[in-house]
């Protein structure tokens, strides 16, 4: 494949960023918006060309049917040692091609959507510049040929996320949310960095292909290197996963994601639902052969994922802010993907069930990106209409926003896992993988799936039904403008039908084509459970009634904890402010000013004191002078004698 198109995929967004960033302030909003869309559209087309060429051109398939990993280009960027070299390159393989499609599609949709949503906002051009920056970084991340390139773009993605969350920089909440997001992910990235350092120290390479194609060799490199009873490889993988936890908002590093909803809603759709947050999943998938080697690491992933999934689902059941509900739902769904990756193997390199977990995870990544972006964009349309994030200000919206209503319903059905919507297929595979790993995990995840259906429909009913819309000040909600409707419809369509894709043919753990089997038992039971959950939600929230309040009063403690997200934020506040800020920083600053500085000043003071102390010597009395003179001479003689004898 020629180098031009892949290169353009990366360069075009970067150029748009620089161009809009530097020249944007001289343009009109409209021009900037259209330019942004045009650039993104071109990128999307190029990405599709690349991905489809990759999937369908036999050139990229080996004789055995295995899809090849192709490095389109790989340019040395920074050379540490002879072996450790950061290269900037373009790796084309099934998952990166998949992500290329996902990212460009969603990004393009968001670009179009924002034309309507962000209309008239101050800093419109800046917004598009940041979107372009984000897209560039995300694309760079997924096509990374080596782990350090991924780290580079990982950081860039974090920074663009920071900029976009803090887009409304005059709002305190937005500023602190962006700060929180950056710092939490930074903390996680520290783990990632350490993981990279450990891994590269032993393997002497950053290259993904070198590592993943020869997991045995990697294991050899780590021969005998242990720390606290675990192989250093495990530690490295866990640390790298910590990076993924940060970005993908796994417990306990999830706290930034709900707050990140302070950003504009399209941004939430793009970054905090569809693309950036799955970077962690992508990272693990990228390194899957290594994780498959280490039972400890993959089990860690499963445990973290399972807990997070349940936790986020519980919390989502009680939230009021629709974006927060969606945020927690995102956390929960990503946890699904993580679990799925974790359960794909059993350690020692043994892949379970043809690696269905891996495939399912990627599949869910794909479908989730579509329907979650859809849901967020719907939420954006609603917010655009009522100027509030709070569902208590919505209710009964079906009457006013039919398109939004229908598309949102499709999104909810998809996420709930109802046949024939896309979520059904991917979630089913995940559950199947879980059951084959351990029935307990399978049951647990089924429960979470039920919860998912419940809280999504809780939200749906509360927004669109429940009771008549309370009209304030004669403000009647209106349907979203055209630029916002197009993406909704497009994504809804995709969510409806992409489940029928033969996903296994494109993506599998060993890149061999693989046929998906729907396991009827699991499929039926999970749909059944989901329907039950939807039924309960319907019972409780379709019409205004006092069931929710009763429920709440029945389990007040639980409700409280869920509502307050199990007080994680407060815990973090306590740790950062009380312990780190007041307990470490302040004492250090005090120590510096008073002890260190005091010592230095102390030298000066002591010198001065000495100076005053001895001033009596200079008494002005000649006799005193002579006396000192004589004593001095005698002492001098004594010194001579002393050294002479001693």
């Amino acid at each position: 494949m020629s180098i031009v198109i892949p290169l353009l995929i990366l360069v075009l967004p970067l150029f748009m960023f620089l161009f809009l960033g530097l020249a944007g302030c001289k343009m009109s909003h409209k021009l900037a918006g259209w330019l942004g869309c045009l650039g993104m559209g071109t990128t999307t087309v190029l990405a599709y060309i690349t991905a489809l060429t990759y999937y369908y051109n036999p050139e990229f398939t080996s004789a055995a049917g295995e899809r090849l990993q192709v490095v389109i280009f790989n340019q040395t960027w920074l050379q540490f040692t002879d072996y450790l070299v950061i290269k900037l390159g373009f790796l084309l393989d099934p998952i990166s091609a998949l992500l290329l499609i996902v990212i460009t599609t969603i990004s393009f949709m968001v670009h179009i959507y924002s034309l309507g949503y962000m209309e008239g906002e101050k800093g419109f051009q800046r917004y598009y510049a940041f979107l372009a920056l984000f897209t560039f970084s995300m694309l760079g991340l997924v096509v990374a040929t080596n782990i350090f390139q991924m780290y580079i773009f990982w950081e860039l993605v974090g920074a663009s996320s920071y900029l976009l969350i803090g887009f409304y920089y005059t709002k305190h909440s937005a500023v602190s949310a962006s700060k929180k997001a950056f710092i939490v992910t930074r903390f996680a990235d520290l783990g990632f960095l350490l993981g990279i350092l450990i891994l590269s120290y032993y393997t002497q390479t950053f290259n993904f292909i070198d590592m993943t194609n020869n997991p045995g060799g990697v294991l050899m490199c780590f021969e005998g290197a242990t720390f606290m009873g675990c192989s250093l490889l495990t530690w490295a993988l866990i640390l790298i996963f910590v990076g993924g936890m940060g970005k993908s908002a796994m417990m306990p590093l999830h706290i930034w994601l709900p707050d990140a909803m302070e950003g504009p809603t399209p941004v939430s759709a793009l970054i905090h639902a569809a693309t950036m947050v799955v970077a962690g999943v992508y990272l693990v998938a990228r390194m899957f052969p290594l994780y498959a080697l280490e039972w400890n690491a993959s089990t860690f992933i499963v445990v973290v994922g399972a807990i997070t999934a349940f936790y986020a689902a519980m919390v989502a059941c009680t939230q009021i802010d629709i974006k927060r509900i969606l945020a927690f739902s995102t956390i929960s769904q990503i946890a699904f993907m993580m679990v799925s990756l974790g359960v794909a193997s059993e350690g020692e390199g043994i892949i379970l069930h043809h690696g269905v977990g891996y495939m399912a995870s990627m599949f869910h990544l794909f479908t989730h990106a579509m329907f979650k972006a859809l849901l967020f964009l719907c939420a954006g349309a609603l917010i655009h209409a009522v100027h509030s994030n709070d569902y208590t200000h919505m209710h009964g919206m079906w009457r006013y926003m039919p398109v939004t209503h229908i598309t949102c319903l499709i999104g909810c059905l998809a996420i709930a896992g109802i046949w024939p919507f896309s979520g059904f297929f991917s979630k089913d595979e995940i559950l199947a993988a879980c059951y084959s790993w351990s029935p307990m995990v399978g049951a647990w995840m089924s429960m979470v799936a039920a919860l998912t259906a419940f809280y999504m429909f809780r939200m749906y009913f509360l927004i669109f039904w429940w009771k008549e819309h309370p009209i304030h000040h004669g403000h009647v909600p209106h349907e979203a403008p055209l630029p916002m409707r197009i993406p909704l419809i497009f994504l809804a369509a995709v969510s409806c039908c992409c489940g029928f894709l033969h996903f296994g043919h494109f993506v599998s753990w060993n890149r061999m084509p693989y046929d998906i089997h729907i396991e009827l038992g699991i499929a039926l039971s999970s749909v059944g459970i989901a329907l039950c959950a939807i039924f309960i939600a319907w019972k409780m929230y379709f019409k205004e009634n006092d069931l929710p309040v009763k429920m709440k009063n029945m389990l007040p403690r639980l409700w409280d904890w869920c509502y307050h997200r199990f007080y994680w934020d407060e815990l973090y506040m306590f740790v950062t402010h009380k312990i780190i800020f007041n307990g470490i920083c302040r004492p250090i600053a005090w120590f510096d000013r008073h002890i260190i500085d005091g010592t230095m000043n102390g030298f000066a003071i002591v010198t001065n004191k000495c100076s005053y102390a001895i001033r009596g010597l200079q008494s002005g009395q000649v006799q005193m002078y002579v006396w000192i003179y004589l004593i001095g001479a005698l002492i001098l003689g004594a010194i001579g004698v002393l050294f002479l004898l001693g």
Partner: protein
Amino acid sequence: MFCCGVYGFITRKNMIAILISLELMLNAVDINFALFNRYLYPGHMEGMFFTLFAIAIAAAETALAIAIIINIFRVTRNVDVQGLDKMKL
């Protein structure tokens, strides 16, 4: 004798007395030289010569010192050495 001179220098208040003490010290030196010459090295006369010169120098010193003390006396009407502490510390 040297020690007496030193003692005198340190304890006397009157500058003239101090001057006399100084003379004592110088004379002690002279005697030292003369003695050493006479008893230790009777062959040469170096010590003796030195003594002669030292006496001359002592005289010059005394003259100068007295001149200055008189100057002081003119200003302060006093020859008390402990009063001379306008400049100190």
